[in-house]
């Protein structure tokens, strides 16, 4: 019998939040999502049972190293997993309005009208590379208008007015001019603002931001993050914020999910993640951030080893080969179940230290 089947552990995360907050308004709920890539040299298990919830108007940060499945989680939500990837199982429940019966996005056909109506209208996305995420052949205004015309059914002139408005809203100087500019005429920060404008043009319920500031310099990054935070409060949307930068998480997020090898290993409020981290991986991640004011000439800690190659399956806890608290005979055999920390239903961890 596997550990995951134990009644105590599986019952806690589902029953506890219900009693704590029975009317919680969840915009997006991902349940046990598995995404596999069937490549010629073998199966890559990109996501192995990812589950999380994003409440309305909140920002969930998804943190992890490269290749841990952050981006695949976001693409699965949009139903844009590239070939040869495939969603194996799981549910992605989306509620546009409170108390609405949720739609399981995975039951919709990938290119169906229903799915396309959700994409870009209810859920929109900002990508990592502002340099390449706008089409070089069309003006910024045309690309924003395209979404507005598609989802809001307005004529070209009205769409243009709205596009200029949204460009002004994201802090573009001279938005009329920007609207008739081509992407190559704008700087990286400006392009990312244009991307944000495009993503927000239809006032989405959920915004997925996949490392939106990774390619920008720090001053631009700060401006973009502040802009996103302001607009999030103004529109009241939820954000799935994907990043590997814990500093950005502290600035942006309400809740944090830490991912490792296609699983969420710890989920907590942003305060708990920084002041009361439980999972050894989270603790090590936090220790590897360089800090101002720390003593000079102290070597920055790094996590030993590296992410195992994607074709192999690690038995037991996926982190055990690199874990300082590795318990032989347990961690490399049994996969740890999701456990609540100190009875706090809003802080869960997957580690044998806490079972």
């Amino acid at each position, binding site marked *: 019998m596997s550990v995951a089947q134990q009644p105590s552990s599986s019952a806690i995360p589902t029953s506890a939040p219900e009693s704590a907050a029975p009317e919680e308004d969840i915009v997006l709920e991902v349940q046990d999502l598995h995404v596999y890539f069937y490549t010629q040299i073998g199966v890559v298990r990109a996501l192995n049972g990812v589950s999380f919830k994003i409440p309305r108007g909140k920002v969930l940060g998804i943190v992890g190293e490269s290749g841990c499945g952050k981006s695949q989680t976001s693409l699965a939500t*949009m139903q*844009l997993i590239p070939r040869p990837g495939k969603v194996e199982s799981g549910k992605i429940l989306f509620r546009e309005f409170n108390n609405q019966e949720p739609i399981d996005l995975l039951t919709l056909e990938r*290119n169906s009208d229903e799915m*396309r*109506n*959700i*994409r*870009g*209208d209810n859920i*929109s*996305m900002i*990508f*990592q*590379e502002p340099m*390449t*995420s*706008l*089409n*070089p*052949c*069309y*003006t910024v205004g045309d*690309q924003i208008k*395209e*979404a507005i015309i*598609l*989802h809001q059914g307005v004529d070209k002139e009205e769409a243009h007015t709205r596009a200029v408005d949204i460009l002004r809203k994201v802090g573009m100087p001279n938005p009329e001019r920007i609207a008739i500019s*081509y992407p*190559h005429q704008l700087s990286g920060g400006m392009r990312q603002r244009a*991307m944000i404008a*495009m993503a927000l043009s239809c006032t989405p319920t959920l915004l997925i931001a996949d490392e939106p500031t990774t390619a920008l310099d720090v001053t631009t990054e700060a401006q973009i993050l502040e802009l996103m935070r302001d607009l999030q409060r103004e529109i009241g949307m939820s954000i799935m914020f994907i990043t590997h930068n814990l500093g950005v998480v502290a600035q942006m997020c309400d809740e944090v999910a830490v991912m490792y090898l296609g699983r969420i290993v710890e989920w907590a409020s942003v305060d708990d993640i920084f002041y009361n981290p439980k999972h050894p991986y989270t603790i090590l991640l936090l220790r590897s951030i360089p800090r101002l004011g720390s003593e000079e000439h102290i070597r920055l800690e790094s996590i030993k080893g590296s992410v195992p190659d994607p074709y192999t399956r690690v038995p037991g806890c996926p982190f055990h080969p690199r874990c300082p608290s590795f318990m032989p005979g347990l961690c490399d055999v049994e996969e740890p179940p999701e456990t609540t920390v100190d009875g706090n239903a809003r802080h869960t961890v997957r580690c044998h230290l806490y079972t």
Partner: protein
Amino acid sequence: MVNFLIRRLFYMLVTLFFVSIIGFALIELPPGSYLDSELQRLRQLGGNLSQSQIRSLEIRYGVNDPTYLKYWKWVSGAVRGDFGESFEYKKPVGELIWGRLLFSVTLAFSSLIFAWLVSIPLGVYAATHRYTIPDYLITAMQFIGVAVPQFLLALVLMVFATTVLKQEVGGLVSQRFVNAPMSWEKFWDFVSHLWIPIIVISAGSTAWLTRVMRANLLDVLNMQYIQTARAKGLKEGVVIWKHAVRNAIHPLVMAIGGVLPALISGEVIASIVLNLPTTGPLLVQALIKQDMYLAITMVMFLSIMLIVGNLIADLLLAWVDPRVRLE
């Protein structure tokens, strides 16, 4: 943009000036002249020719003039539209080539448009259905298209047209229309004669352009902005044709510049096999017979077409891709 055009036109004139000098020198380079073959013909006809007769012919044809003088004679006339007289045909060069040139250009452009119409959809289909059976079939056809020699393709199509379609082939129009006045019937007959040369001439470039289209589109489909377009909720067809193809089509546009002269030189064999009155066979004949004014004039016109083709390609590219536009 106007500045750009004026500058380009100026460069074109400079290029043509150098082409005319080099072309003229190259045509003058082989020993002997048209007169040698003409004398041989006259000797066969009527026995010996006296030295004085030869001398007067030399003066009449001007073959012993220095090269710069011949060049001056030709170029001063050419700028006024008088390209001299063909030795062989005893006719003004202009009169000889206009019709053929027009037909060659028609054929080249029809072939290019045919190549585009076939290669763009096929390339897009192959790229969006990579590693499926239709993709492999298209790939196999491309290799055949590149590998089959034009004369063979021309012969096969002629046999096919005469035995299966019961169509008259060869030449521009059927025998019964040769001396008939222009009419819709004659025009239709002309069009039905055109398809064989178009296929023969464009087979190679179609195959090549399909390959290029497929490879480029595969690159573009991996670009982030394609993901952006999909994330907007656009239909897959719009994503492909509006956002991807426009970014993948550059080499096909640039092909106008390169394909046009290739089509014109490539049609020589097809024209000989199909008995078509294009510039190709005429140019080959003129070079063999050292009919120099005819040869240099045709070389000049082919150069003009090459340069104009490139200009059109550049303008089209600027229209397709704003990054190429000059600020």
